């Protein structure tokens, strides 16, 4: 198999049984995602994108089909092995940040290293501080989540996803709880990480957010209805434009 393929799914289906009803959440997904890509998975609610994300993220098993992650056939793994794969290969970023409360930023980032059975990292704290510095929070290491803004909390979550140096980042609506400026800030960070070679899978229903990705896969009723590459919009340019507009507005307010 081609080494540059990070995710390869073939004929993935997922059927939920609810009482006597059978709900087909996924009806055969064939997707290849290459190393270094930044892919947005789009779709309305009920399209099956959350189900796909759960399966791709190693949180759930497909009903049928195969899924290879970084060369490992994941759909046949035991629960424990799957937990190890999540730990070593995947970095999760959630919509609601999902940081542990009353736990400092650096301790949150250290968390995945606690469960690393390979013991790859000698000094978890050092690695965690490095990851926090990478997302621009080197000066907030000992802050608690409730002492940080939403954008900063999401950066901590991204640092936590990066600390194990996973094969890919899996971001589920990462900007869903953020205002527009912070959204663009976070997307700038994602693009920078992607530029440094990290594969990023972004689940979103917002076209604005998807426009920052180089490839868009759209789902509807459990099937892929669109899978195309696009010219990605630079989040940094957007950010600078928005900030410039803000400054203009403020100056006008002062003048009037």
């Amino acid at each position: 198999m081609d080494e540059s393929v990070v995710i390869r799914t073939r004929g993935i289906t997922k059927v939920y049984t609810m009482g006597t009803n059978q709900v087909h959440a996924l009806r055969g997904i064939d997707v290849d995602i290459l190393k270094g890509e930044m892919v947005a998975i789009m779709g309305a609610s009920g399209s099956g994108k959350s189900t796909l994300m759960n399966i791709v993220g190693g949180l759930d098993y497909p009903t049928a089909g195969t899924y290879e992650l970084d060369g490992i056939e994941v759909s046949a793994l035991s629960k424990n092995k799957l937990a190890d794969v999540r730990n070593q290969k995947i970095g999760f970023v959630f919509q609601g940040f999902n940081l542990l409360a009353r736990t400092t930023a650096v301790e949150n980032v250290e968390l995945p290293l606690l469960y690393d059975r390979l013991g790859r990292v000698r000094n978890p704290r050092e690695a965690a501080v490095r990851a926090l510095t990478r997302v621009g929070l080197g000066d907030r290491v000992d802050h608690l989540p409730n002492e940080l803004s939403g954008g900063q909390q999401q950066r901590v979550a991204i640092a936590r996803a990066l600390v194990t140096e996973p094969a890919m980042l899996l971001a589920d609506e990462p900007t869903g709880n953020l205002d527009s400026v912070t959204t663009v800030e976070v997307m700038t960070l994602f693009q920078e990480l992607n530029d440094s070679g990290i594969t990023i899978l972004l689940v979103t229903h917002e076209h604005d957010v998807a426009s920052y990705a180089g490839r868009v896969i759209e789902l509807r009723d459990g099937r892929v209805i669109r899978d195309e590459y696009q010219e990605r919009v630079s989040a940094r340019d957007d950010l600078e434009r928005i900030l410039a507009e803000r400054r203009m507005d403020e100056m006008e307010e002062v003048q009037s």
Partner: protein
Amino acid sequence: MRPFRLVKVAGKSILKNKMRTLLTMLGIIIGVGAVLVMVAVGDGAKSQIENQIRNLGSNMLVVTPGSSSAGGVSRGSGSFNRLSLEDAEKIRNESVFVSMVSPVVTTFSQIIGGSGNWRARLNGVDVDYLLIRDWDLASGSWFTPQDVRSGKKVAVLGTTVADKLFSGQDPVGQTIQIRNVPVQVIGVLEPKGQTPEGSDQDDVVLAPYTTVQQRLSRFRFISQILVSTSNQNDIPAAQEEINQILRESHGLAQFEENDFEVKNQTQLADAASGTTEVMTLLLAAIASISLLVGGIGIMNIMLVSVTERTREIGIRMAIGARGSDVLVQFLIEAIVMSVLGGAIGVAVGFGGAALVANITGWSTVVEPNTVIVALVFSAAVGIFFGFYPARKAAAMNPIDALRFE
């Protein structure tokens, strides 16, 4: 995940909820403390009794009359007294292991002395009696073998009797009247205290057994024969030997039961401490119930905690925690709480035992074994009551757990 990290994680999450942790531990603290105090009271009583038994004499055996039964109805110990002076004499002459023998002839009598009169136990004994009982004289002298042979009218007083009859004065050399017979006081005993049953050992008058039998009570049978061996290891052999000598002396056939009893101090101690052991067990059992309640408290809080931290569990699982990691984390939390509670409970127990001793005047003893058992037991409570909540946490589905609000 390395064990010490697990303990660290558990410690952190316990510290995050200090008040709740303290209240949860309180159940264990009270439970362990209560068990410790109760057992300390029981052990204290036991060791006090053992001390008293040891105080009876050294390497001592006590021969007492046995029971008689007629038509299947036993009439109880002492109901058929065939113990005689000849028996004591035989033991003295025939036994190899026995070094000292003294018959004890007991009667109660009104005694009139210098400044008052007093009803006391009158023991007729032989010269060896003092050595067997490991008893010393406070003043005066002890009677001689010559005195015993001639049935001389002399007596040695216990301190209680001496106080009652001659308060403040020196009784040695004075004369007392026992059943209208004048008897000369030649000595006073050291105080010995109470028996395990609570009777005053110092409330006694000792006289040569010949004097008591011939001149004061005219009893033919004797109530006890005290025997001692020179070596503690000889006690079982001596016991066996005395059995044989007395069976022969009493002409018992093979199938007949002994009409006497030979008891050593351990047996006496066992009989006396048997009841306290039951009491200790009972107290410990009652106190254990509070430990059990404490355990249920831990389970309750752990269940609440698991539900409350469903999201945390989801996060941990999403980033790679195995079910077993989560199980161990919550189990360790429960164990740390219960062991910590147990340790504090031990401290409280020590304090409580001292307090009880101080207030009631009972002696309390906290044995190292009790402390170890209490700690092990509290850890076991943690494991037992922590397992169910921990398993519940470990069995969670990460997707559902992450979605939990």
